[in-house]
Every structure is written in structure tokens, then in C-alpha cells.
């Protein structure tokens, strides 16, 4: 197992390099000048040259990429072109906000998905199944930015129950787990939970139905095992599949949704990515994409390890 974890960590290095290279090339291929955000359109030529020099953007691309990688390895992702702040600090703050939102969405989405999926499987073919399936299909089909706007119109604008934007009455920097702050979390978390809820519902329904029809469940019943014990066996058998789906979904949630975070002005990684794209803030853009990609890699590893621990039939390493 230990060797497996080490090997997976080593695999992450080429992935990180490839992500960094692709991202670096893409932002340089995109139209526009990387310093549009900083230099006024009619700046004299000598000012443009001086500023390019100050930001190190007068050097060949390969040299810029090399020096960026060199610093990134040491944990320094450079300084934002637009704000002059260290990229790492900005990403750290945004990531903590996205984590809060991702955990809240995952909690609602996964518990709702498991509940609906299990109900659908246990009551296979009945109206309960049909309702759960309908909810799942609706969940994965509705564009979440549209749902977000709709929820804002209903719950913020019309009913005036919940705030429509932001991460707390005084911003996210002094986040507390009280109602004044949590109410800001409700609408974005509910908006973002629908897709994972739909996908988890479908997975749980399919997996649990299959297990309920397997011979060992009949055998357990024939031996007179209590229902709760049987449910435990079913859950244990369904867990690895559901867990891997939940891991992937949690990865998407962690990436933060550009659209949802922008609709709710939630200061997470999606919102930061949106800002970086529109300001063509290359150091910030590269930094966020790299950190998010690494999160995905780490999360996949974590899911693999958990699966192995839960199901000894899965052998890794």
C-alpha cells in the first residue's frame, strides 16, 4: 500500500508539468496582450517596454515558463499582474472559501443522493422510485447557473429570506459558523448540490438494486438475519462504487464552479479564475489551474486508498 501511494505521488509530477505547460501555452495563444489589465491603451512605447521588463514578460516564452516552474516547485506561484499580491495567498483564501462551499454542497448533495438512491432501490419500480429517478434526472439536467438565478429571484428578491451574494456580512475573512454567515452559504450550496445529488442518486440506485438482487442477500435473509444487519452488508458492498463517484464529484465541487461562484459573488477559486481570465492575469490563472489539478490528483489518490481499505478484493500496489 505504501509503495502504491509513493508511486501515485510520483505520477502526479508529470501530470502537474503537463497541466502547467498546457495552461501556459493556452493563455499565451489566447488573443490579447497579457498586460492589458495594467497598461493603458495609449501608454507611450517606452512605458510599455519598461512595464513588460518589470513583469519579466519581455523574455522568450520558454524562459518565462522555466523560471515559473522553478519557483512553483519551491511553493512560489509568483505575483498577480493585476494586484501585485502573491498568487499563493490569494489562492489560499479562495480555496478555503471554495472548500466551505464544496463541503456544504457535498453534504447536502451526497446525503440527499444516498437517501433518494437507496429509497429508489428499495422501492424499485414503485412511485417512490419514479420520483427519485425524476429528481435525479432533473438534477443533472438543470444548468446550475440558471437554477442559481432562479433561487435568488425567489428566495432573495421576492421573499427576502436569504442573501443573494457574498460570503458573510463582513466578507469571508472573518467567517464564523453562525447564522449570519451560514445564510450566505445556503443558496450557492443548494444550487451546487443538485448535480452531485443526481449523479449519486443514480449510482446508489443502480448499485443497491443490483446488490439487493444478488444471491448473498437472499442467503442472509434465509438465515434469519435482522434487517439492519442486512442493510449494513448491502451498504458495505455498495460503498466502493458510490465512494469513487462521490470522490469525482467532490473533485468537481472543489474546482469551484465559475458560473455559480460568479452568480453569487462567492469569493472562491471559480470566482478567482473568472477574474483572472477577464483580467488576463496569467500568473494567477496558471497558479489556480495548477493547484486545482493537484487537488484532483490528491483526491483520486485518497479515494483509491479508501476503496482499498474498505474492500480487500481491490488490490493495489
Amino acid at each position: 500500500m505504501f509503495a502504491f501511494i509513493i508511486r501515485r505521488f510520483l505520477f502526479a509530477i508529470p501530470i502537474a508539468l503537463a497541466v502547467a505547460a498546457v495552461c501556459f501555452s493556452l493563455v499565451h495563444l489566447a488573443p490579447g496582450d497579457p498586460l492589458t489589465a495594467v497598461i493603458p491603451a495609449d501608454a507611450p512605447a517606452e512605458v510599455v517596454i519598461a512595464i513588460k521588463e518589470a513583469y519579466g514578460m519581455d523574455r522568450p516564452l520558454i524562459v518565462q515558463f522555466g523560471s515559473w516552474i522553478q519557483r512553483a516547485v519551491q511553493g512560489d506561484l509568483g505575483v498577480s499582474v493585476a494586484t501585485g499580491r502573491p498568487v499563493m495567498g490569494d489562492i489560499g483564501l479562495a480555496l478555503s472559501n471554495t472548500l466551505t462551499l464544496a463541503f456544504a454542497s457535498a453534504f447536502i448533495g451526497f446525503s440527499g443522493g444516498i437517501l433518494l438512491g437507496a429509497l429508489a432501490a428499495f422501492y424499485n419500480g414503485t412511485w417512490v422510485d419514479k420520483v427519485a429517478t425524476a429528481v435525479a434526472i432533473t438534477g443533472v439536467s438543470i444548468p446550475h447557473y440558471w437554477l442559481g438565478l432562479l433561487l435568488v429571484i425567489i428566495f432573495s428578491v421576492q421573499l427576502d429570506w436569504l442573501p443573494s451574494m457574498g460570503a458573510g456580512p463582513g466578507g469571508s475573512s472573518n467567517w464564523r459558523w453562525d447564522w449570519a454567515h451560514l445564510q450566505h452559504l445556503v443558496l450557492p450550496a443548494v444550487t451546487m448540490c443538485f448535480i452531485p445529488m443526481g449523479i449519486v442518486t443514480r449510482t446508489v440506485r443502480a448499485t443497491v438494486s443490483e446488490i439487493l438482487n444478488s444471491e448473498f442477500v437472499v442467503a442472509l435473509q434465509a438465515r434469519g438475519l435482522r434487517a439492519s444487519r442486512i442493510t449494513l452488508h448491502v451498504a458495505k458492498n455498495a460503498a466502493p462504487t458510490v465512494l469513487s463517484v462521490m470522490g469525482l464529484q467532490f473533485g468537481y465541487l472543489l474546482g469551484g464552479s465559475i458560473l455559480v461562484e460568479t452568480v453569487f459573488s462567492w469569493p472562491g477559486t471559480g470566482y478567482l479564475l473568472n477574474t483572472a481570465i477577464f483580467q488576463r492575469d496569467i500568473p494567477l490563472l496558471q497558479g489556480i489551474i495548477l493547484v486545482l489539478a493537484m487537488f484532483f490528483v490528491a483526491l483520486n489518490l485518497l479515494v483509491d486508498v479508501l476503496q482499498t481499505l474498505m474492500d480487500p478484493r481491490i488490490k493495489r500496489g
Partner: protein
Amino acid sequence: MKSVPSVAKTCLRFPLKALTVASLVALLPLTAQAQGVVRIGMTASDIPLTSGAPNSGFEGVRFTGMTLYDALVSWDLSVEDKVAPLVPQLATQWSVDESDPRKWTFTLRQGVKFHDGSEFNADAVLFNFDKIFNDKSPQYDAQQAAQVVARLPAFESIQKIDEYTVEITTKTPNAMFINQLPFMFMSSPAHWEALGGDWKAFEQNPSGTGPFKLDRLVPRERAELIPNHDYWNEARKAQAERIVLIPIPEANTRANALLSRQVDWIENPPADTLPMLQSRGYQITSNGYPHIWPWQFSFLDGSPWLDKRVRQAANLAVDRESIQQLLGGYMVPAQGLLLPDDPAFGDPDFKISYDPEAAKALLAEAGYGASNPVQAKVLISASGSGQMQPLQMNELIQQQLKEVGIEISFEVLVWETLFNNWRQGAADPASMGAHATNITFATHDPFAALIRFMDSKNVAPVSLNWGHYKNVEVDGLIADLQTAFDPAENLRVYTQLHETIVEDSPYLFVAHDTGPRAMSEKVTGFVQAKSWFQDLTPVHMKD
């Protein structure tokens, strides 16, 4: 299998309860906000820099420049019925040396203190010019320099004459230098030193001489300004208890934030929400300001706009009132480059109006007709800062021009690409042979309005003369303007220059934006000046 669901029901009871409680809690109403706090939703995606040279364009200057800082001169933003004029601020008076008109002497205001209590004087002015222009000085800040250098292109050097007098030398005699100074804000040298000479620390804890102090800054989320009770100008003492600036770049989110009472004021509400906001009792303020929405014509070989009659015909073929209707009334029909009530508008011989018959006659005279229409390609964007509603407006203009015999095709570019192309010019391959470009701009002074686009020395890529426009008369007037130091003479030359430009029509003059803002009925005291900049000091909440 019957027993399994019953177990599942027991297991599921807790999450169901939790969800019920959570949804009930969600129904609790929001707590009310304190009076006297004005929360403003900006269009910027981050808090503009607070160290004395804001980024985020003019919105930055408006919110973290003119609030926290003062400049030697600024605009009088207290009036709404005329284009905001320049007035003394930290300089009480100035004069130009008659023997060497490159030298400007400024007398500084005495008794002004920075927020940290240190004194504003000639040394402070020198410190600030060095932070922008002298990269050898310890206080040089590349980030602030990037924002300011291009806005003060005439500056060469500065020296102290005495404690309250400084002398600035420009590169060449330039009467318009005074127009460039409002962008040069004064940060406190003593405070910068006390913070260990660290501009990043200064950003969190800035010190200017402005009517507001920064109380709290959360990057990307909010800046909170409180009144500077010791402000030197009694007429501009801040009335609100606190101004909270919140970046909300998404237009619908801004409107929803206003409707759900999370902010009291939003910049640039989405056009389609204005009637609804108004019907719900929100105040909508607007006023024409020095902004123009034009097509800038190309004068390269093969361009149909080389013929003045075609340029004038296009200007006569556009029904600006229908465009005004399209925009819900929020625009001023353009009759030239400047607002019709600008002191320098003048009385051009060529009157811009909607007269399709006259347009057809001009085209016929130029050799065009139904069988031989004018054909031109225009670069446009689907969105962009200050571009208003570019697609709808351009399509309407396209229809109107077609009716007189001008056939337009569009090349729709990403806003950033179009903006970068401005500096590349019409001859660059990136312009794809287009005959005009549609980029809006500020016209608050002669340099911004005219010189960078119309002077033949500024042909792209030197500056923004995108279409390679060359007119000897215009060049001559620009040279005269630069040496017209007497204000009355300066206005006379500028007026003549504007009249010449309207007559020659190197643009399709279409619209001036009116900068709509939406605010709660409780916001009071705001006067929307005819300017890109606005004064927040009289703004407060009704009891």
C-alpha cells in the same frame, strides 16, 4: 424483502429531520442594516488599488482614488448641469513661466494633513512624483507607475522652490498638462516610511489627504471607508457614517444584490432591469458625461471613408433617436465628439442630424447609388467596458445605413482582442482589412478626446490613431492648442479644433453614455456630475 425498507426508514429518519430543521432555519428573515452606511456594488472584480494610483480604470479612480486622496487639481463634481470643470485642490494656484512655458509653478495649500497626521508640503509632492517617475528612488512603485505614467505623458521633472511651492517642467510646452494632474494622487511619505517603505503594507493601511479614510480592506470582497473628520475642505466633508465598496462584476448579481437589499447603490445596472427597478421605487440617476460611442474610420487606401461625402452621408443616415429608444432613453445622441453642451463644442458648419435624403444626395455626388452601394467592414465587440449594447446598436446602425446605400459587414471580436487592435491600427493584419473600428472612449480633455486619435504623429502603433488619419489643419490646431496657455485662447482653439473634426467627420458619431446608477430610495445627497468621476462626500442614508 419487506423488512429491509423498514430498516432503511429508521436509518433515514435523522437526515430527514436535519433537512427539515435546516429548511425552517433558512426561512428566518435577514437582520436589518445600520443607518448611515452606504453599500455600493461596483462593476470591478476586485477592490481597486488603494495605495494612491488605483487600477480598474476610471471606476478605480472614482472609488479608491478621489475618496482617499487628493491631487493638485481636480474636477468640481458638485454641479450636474455642465461638464465638470477643473478646480484647485491641493494646489491653490498655478502659473506658467512666460520666458520658458515648459515651467509650471504651483502654490500648495497650507495646513493640509495626511490621515496619519503628517503635513502635506512640497517634499510630499516631490516624494509622490518620484514614486511614479523616478525608478532610482526608494519609493518607486512599478505598479503605481503603470497606472499613472501614461496619464501624465507631458511630465519631465519637478523641483522644490520652497516649503509650499513646486516647479514642474514639461517635456515640451504643453497647455494641457494641467488636465493630466487630477490622476496624480498624493500619498503620505511619513506613513510609507513608518510602514517600513512597503507599498503592500500601505495598501492595507493607506494614508492620503482625502475626505475618507480606509477602515477595512478585504481583497476581492470589500473596502470600508469612514469620514476623515479633519478634512481641509469643509464643503466636502463626508456625510455618510461609512461607505462600503463591494466588487460585483456580474451585472445581474449586482441588480439582485440591490433588490435583496444587500447593497444600497449599484453602478451600471443591466439595461433591461431599469424599468423594473424604477417601478419598485429605486432611484435611477443618469447624466451625459464625456464619453463617445463612435466608429473610428480607416483612411488607408481602399477605404470608402476616404471620401468626406461618404463620411458625412453615414453621419446623416443614422437615426440616433431610435438608438436612444433602444437603450431605454439612457444615452445622449451625439452631434460631434464632445457633449452638445461642452464649452468647446462650438458651432460646426456640418450639423449632424437624421436626414437620409441628404445622405443619399451626398452618396450620389460621390458616385454611389443603388447599383453601386458603399461597402465597408467594421470591427465590433459583443460586450466590453463602456461599449453599452454594441451588438444591438451596431445592427440598428447597419439597417439604417443600408437604407441610404451603405452596406456594412461586421467582424465581431472578443472585447480584449478589439481593444488590443486599437493600438495595432488599421494596417495591421489583425485588423483583417476592416474600414472602421468601434471602441468607446473618454473625452474629458483635449488629449483624451482628440489628440491621441487625430494627431498624425500618433498613427498606430505609436498611439491610437487607428485609421491613419492625417489632416494638416487638425495637426496645426493641435500644435496651437499645446501652446495656448491663456484659458480663453485655449478654449477658442479647442472649439475650433472640435468644429473642424465634426466638419471632417473622421468618425461616425453615435452616442454619449449617461452612466445610469440605481440606488435605494434611502440614499440621498448624490449629485450625478457630467463626468466619469463622482463625489461620494455628500452621499448618505435618510433616517
